[in-house]
């Protein structure tokens, strides 16, 4: 009788850069080495996912709770699958509406979850900073699964992992992110992660979809605590010139209200990633999208399904990255 294979992911990386953090709130506090640790642990997880029975008992007996205050299919399912693949018990809690509307405070809710045994809390919340509030009041580990317009670190990690798989060293690579930069948590986390890996980030969109302090031709602040500098372009053709990676963002249809854009049609005319535009990027440049896609709005169907597109691979890598994150945070818990 064969024994269940032991998990061979107490990797050599651990010796080089031991993982000591309790939470994963954003990439802004991670060093390049720490990000490498996650990405290399993800390699090991990918190997597990390729096995006939893609399961290991590394987190057997650990309890992971996903607490989602916003609708989400892929992120929540991805975390659940990741936890289960590592043998953890995963409990999904969908909290409808904001905690305030329900009359139960967020802190009360998470304390209850901790009291019933949550050791890792994966949370998504519409208010920026909510996971930071929770981390202050909880002894469990907190994984930020997206907080308002602030951060979405596991998305940025899976993006980095996907880029690294195709490109290798990201130093001085031109990564162009197109779309609603102002309201995107994906962009903010990607800017930190890409800056740590030495990539050159270009953001592109109309001025109404760029956040304060990011205007084309405007001096960016020298404040040491501000977001890292990025190149800002409003013209997509200029932005795409020589790109190694092109990432389109989902355009929320409600952005038409409040004068952010005149119409979806005009947005698509100006900013859709089309085959003609993509030709300005480097040959074989990666096409990415955090999903879900509005085909024919921010990206043309031909581009989304082209050979250059790694959009489906991003989703698959998302599970492996989340396995790595959960493993690094939860393995030491007694």
């Amino acid at each position, binding site marked *: 009788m064969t024994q269940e294979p032991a998990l061979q992911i107490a990797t050599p990386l651990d010796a080089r850069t031991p993982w000591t953090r309790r939470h994963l709130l954003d990439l802004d*506090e991670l060093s390049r080495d720490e990000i490498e640790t996650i990405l290399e642990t993800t390699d090991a997880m990918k190997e597990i996912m390729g096995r006939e029975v893609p399961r290991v008992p590394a987190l057997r007996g650990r309890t992971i709770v996903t607490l989602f205050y916003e609708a989400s299919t892929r992120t929540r399912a991805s975390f659940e699958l990741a936890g289960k693949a590592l043998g953890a018990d995963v409990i999904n809690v969908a909290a409808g509406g904001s905690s305030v509307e329900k009359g139960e405070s967020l802190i009360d809710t998470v304390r209850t979850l901790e009291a019933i045994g949550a050791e890792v809390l994966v949370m998504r919340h519409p208010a*920026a900073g909510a996971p*930071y509030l929770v981390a*202050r009041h909880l002894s469990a580990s907190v994984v930020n699964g997206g907080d*308002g*317009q602030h951060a979405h670190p596991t998305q940025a990690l899976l993006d980095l992992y996907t880029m690294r798989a195709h490109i290798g060293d990201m130093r001085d690579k031109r990564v162009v992110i197109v779309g609603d930069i102002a309201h995107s948590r994906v962009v903010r986390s990607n800017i930190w992660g890409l800056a740590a890996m030495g990539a050159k980030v270009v953001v592109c969109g109309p001025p109404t979809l760029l*956040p304060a302090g990011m205007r084309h031709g405007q001096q960016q602040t020298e404040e040491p605590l501000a977001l890292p500098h990025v190149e800002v372009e409003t013209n997509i053709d200029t932005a795409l010139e020589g790109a190694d990676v092109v990432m389109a963002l989902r355009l929320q249809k409600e952005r038409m209200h409040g004068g952010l854009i005149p119409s979806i049609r005009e947005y698509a005319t100006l900013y859709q990633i089309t085959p003609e535009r993509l030709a300005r990027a480097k040959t074989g440049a990666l096409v990415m999208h955090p999903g879900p896609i509005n085909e024919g709005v921010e990206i043309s169907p031909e581009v989304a399904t082209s050979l250059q597109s790694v959009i489906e691979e991003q989703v698959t890598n998302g599970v492996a990255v989340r396995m790595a994150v959960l493993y690094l945070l939860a393995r030491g818990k007694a």
Partner: protein
Amino acid sequence: MTTLAIRGGRVIDPANGIDATADVLIVDGQIAAVGPDAGKDASETVDASGLVVCPGFVDIHCHLREPGFEHKETIETGTLAAARGGFTTVCAMPNTEPPTDSAAAVEFVLHTAQTQGHVRVLPIGCVTRGRAGKELADLAELAQAGAVAFSDDGSPVVDPHLMRRALEYAAMLGTPVIEHSEDPALSAGGVMHEGWVSTRLGLSGIPAAAEEAAVARNVALARETGSPIHCAHVSTAGSVEIVRSAKARGVAVTAEVTPHHLALTHEAVMQSGREAPGGLAYDTNAKVNPPLRTPEDVEACVAGLLDGTIDCIATDHAPHASQDKVCEFDAAAMGISGLETAFAQSLSAVPLEKVIAALTVAPAAVLGLERHVVKIGTLSEGAPGDVTIIDPKAEWTVEPETFASRGKNTPLAGRTLKGKVVGTVFGGKMAWQA
């Protein structure tokens, strides 16, 4: 006849140009004399040697929350907080429940202050009925009952036509209008200053223009009507510049600044000075309206106060219960509990003599409070026996849990400030002593 002498302190009385070592003698609740040895025969004496003695502070902008929000503050706790902060007169904003938009509501505040208050409370009445911004409140009735000014503070009077009429009507009564200058269409959804900190934190911003557009409107209306308007809590360099140029043109506009806008920037939202997970504080105690702005704005507010563009300091004391603040940043209430830190925080930005003037004679002049309390904000003979005693060199650590205010919401928790109020005399009696 009861006599109280505060002896041997450095007396600073900006209204009378006094800055000298002297005694202050209070007889039957009124200032009787200021001078060397003026208090040598008093029945009761306080030794103020090495300390600064000045008129009791006047706050023309605070929120006492009663009636309606007694879990945040009451007139009793708010006025004790005032006494601890050196204030002997506070003007209570009318955004209570019900709002102070009727004679009965004004009388409630006055009566409660008389029976439970530790210092003088002067009520401010609403500009519009129910603070709804639709029609004028019964302004003459409010003034008759004792309202010293009109304001819908917490909200602006959005409709410029209604504001025009309010200014015209209030001028007939000789009662000033205080406007919370904010264009709600520009500030909608915002929870902090729009700038690099809001961009990093992913929080929705309130642009400086939301305030400046409203200040400019108020200046235009004051000029059009010839009626005075007072701009509450200006916070941006642009607002200061608009007020400066309006004053130069002779427009009857005045302005106040809060201690926190003189000393703190939007970075306080990100970094509280205490250890925070992930290094980002999202400090709801630094969430306030108008928001904390940039260092350039702070500099402009200080310069504006020093050159007289900004007339006075007012606290905008806005106490909240812990559940209003220990929550998501977006959901947190706006406001800082400021009465007990106002003096020291102001002193961190502005010289002592200016702080005292900006907290005494200047705010009294802005609202014309001498119409209600003779010689208020001064140590002139016959002025109320309201005196604040300060140790300008004492260093102390802000411990919100020790506040008299029910609102422990301050971004200064744990910080060391210099300059401490050590005694507050109200109407000739010690209202509070360290």
